């Protein structure tokens, strides 16, 4: 077992709306990532994936608020820190975040090199511009980006190039954890492949030590990450290695998600896609008991009575369902 880079214990965060109502978007998530490993987070829209990503940074701004739990990066607990300390010491050099619309994150009036100067000066104000330029050229060359990009404005770059530039900028300080929130969902398949290749290179060359990858595209997660965690309504419902999760999902929700996979392989045309009926619950008043019960084919009345805890099974796998593994496998087999 390698060194644990990121450990999250029972993290709870909430949104407070302008009517002072609380929305419990992340409700008791625990996870662990070892050095050199990547974790994929899957789930529908509105399951709390992106909120979890924001919460993991330890930098909270309204309407997102921290409730309880711990975030430990390489032995340092950042969950109790002041926002300003987190911004100065943690963001950028410990943990970096790539938002969903990263392509629109670049100010159109600045050259790319200016963003890099901003990032580095926020942590090391004395560093000279020449040093920064040399550092940027070296890093860009290493990641296969042309150095001409540095002197360009964002509008001169294509979508895929912008996305890769944003990733290069956010990882310039070699953070320990990189959180990528749907970094490729706005791109076509070829640009997506380039982005994925670049993120792999970042890992292989040691610029980042671990990665969290959030997407709803399961074939992509299967190819990119080591482990996959499925989220539903702010909670983890199942966790396992990528292979186990795609070929042997246990929780009815994961099973449903895997039913929506489309790949250009022989035989996929004959398989009927199965969508999960309904929509995720409103997290203002999360349902009692199993949160998925209302949409679950296999639900029984007891599902809605008491909170279901995480059950361990197999090697390092976990699920959150009232039934045990053998029973679920039996049901699916029928």
């Amino acid at each position, binding site marked *: 077992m390698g060194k644990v880079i990121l450990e999250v214990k029972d993290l709870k965060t909430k949104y407070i709306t302008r009517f002072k109502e609380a929305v419990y978007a992340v409700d008791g998530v625990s996870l662990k990532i070892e050095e050199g490993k990547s974790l994929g987070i899957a789930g529908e829209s509105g399951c709390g994936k992106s909120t979890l990503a924001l919460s993991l940074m330890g930098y909270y701004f309204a309407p997102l608020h921290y409730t309880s739990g711990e975030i430990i990066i390489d032995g340092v607990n950042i969950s109790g820190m002041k926002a300003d300390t987190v911004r100065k010491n943690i963001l950028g050099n410990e943990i970096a975040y790539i938002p969903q619309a990263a392509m629109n994150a670049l100010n159109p009036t600045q050259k790319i090199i200016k963003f890099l100067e901003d990032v580095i000066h926020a942590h090391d104000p004395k560093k000279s511009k020449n040093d920064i330029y040399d550092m940027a050229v070296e890093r860009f060359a290493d990641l296969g980006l042309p150095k001409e990009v540095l002197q360009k404005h964002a509008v001169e770059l294509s979508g895929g190039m912008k996305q890769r530039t944003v990733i290069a900028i956010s990882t310039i300080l070699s953070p320990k954890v990189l959180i990528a929130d749907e970094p490729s969902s706005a791109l076509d398949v070829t640009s997506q*492949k380039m982005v994925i290749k670049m993120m792999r290179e970042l890992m292989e060359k040691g610029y980042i030590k671990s990665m969290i990858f959030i997407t709803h595209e399961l074939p992509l997660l299967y190819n990119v990450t080591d482990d996959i965690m499925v989220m539903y309504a702010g909670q983890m419902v199942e966790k396992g290695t990528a292979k186990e999760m795609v070929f042997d999902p246990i929780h009815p929700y994961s099973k449903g998600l895997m039913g*929506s996979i489309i790949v250009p392989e022989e035989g996929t045309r004959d398989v009927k896609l199965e969508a999960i009926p309904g929509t995720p619950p409103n997290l203002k008043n999360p349902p009692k008991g199993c949160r998925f019960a209302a949409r679950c084919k296999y639900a029984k009345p007891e599902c809605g009575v008491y909170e279901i805890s995480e059950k361990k099974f197999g090697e390092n796998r976990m699920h959150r369902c009232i039934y045990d593994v053998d029973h679920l496998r039996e049901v699916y087999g029928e």
Partner: protein
Amino acid sequence: MSAEAIKIKKGDSVLKGEGVTKLFGYGKTRTLAVDHVDFDFHAGEVISIVGESGSGKTTIAKMILGLIGVTEGSVYFNGTLRDISSHSKKKEYWKGIQAVFQDPFSSYNIFHKIDDVLLDCINLMGGRGYSKEKKEELMTEACSFVNLKYAELTNKYPFELSGGQMQRLMIARIFLLKPKILIADEPTSMVDACSRATILDMLLKLRDEIDMTIIFITHDIGLAYYVSDTVYIMEHGKFVEAGSADSVILTPQAPYTKRLISDVPKIHEEWDLSTV
């Protein structure tokens, strides 16, 4: 490869293009977006046009819809040369051909309630004189076809809906209009994988119900393989390969098709990242 190579024929030809070309700009900025393409679509067929960003997929769709003019070439609708020279003729043409676009958020007029969107469709189809009850019945039927509840939607504005709901409502429109041809331009690229399955299912159900031709425009070759009978692969404004879905996807001939297929992540084969 020309359209003649396609052997699949489901019904009569509903849409045919000969040497369709689109040129944008003049002089130095002249861009040939679509370069003398031929196509022949039949009733009840699902056709996919697949290509990268900038290959001219959407330009073809817009020309077929009559939203932009055709520089050269001709388009035949139902066997006769189409005439969309005036607004009233265009309106008549649009009764037979409709579209669902990529971004559900910009498909709606934000100042109009959802009822108006559906009412417009009923009016366009000659239902202006229907009683209020009859109109409501039609709207309820259309909403329940796409698993939405009309009672929950009435008197709401588009921003109160989620992306998936908006996209499904666009399909409810198509259900009311019952066009001969539907152009679906990346209808699922902005919704999650779960809603994607629902939307694709609904489109195919609609096809079976009213024998509609669907022209599916996408960059995801996996999606194209799943939904379509015929696949056209487009590169730089030209069709480089065309044929039945099985033959194009499982035994690709053109190098461009091979590359597109290799760019999609798969689950039973190794994904080769070294080829970009």
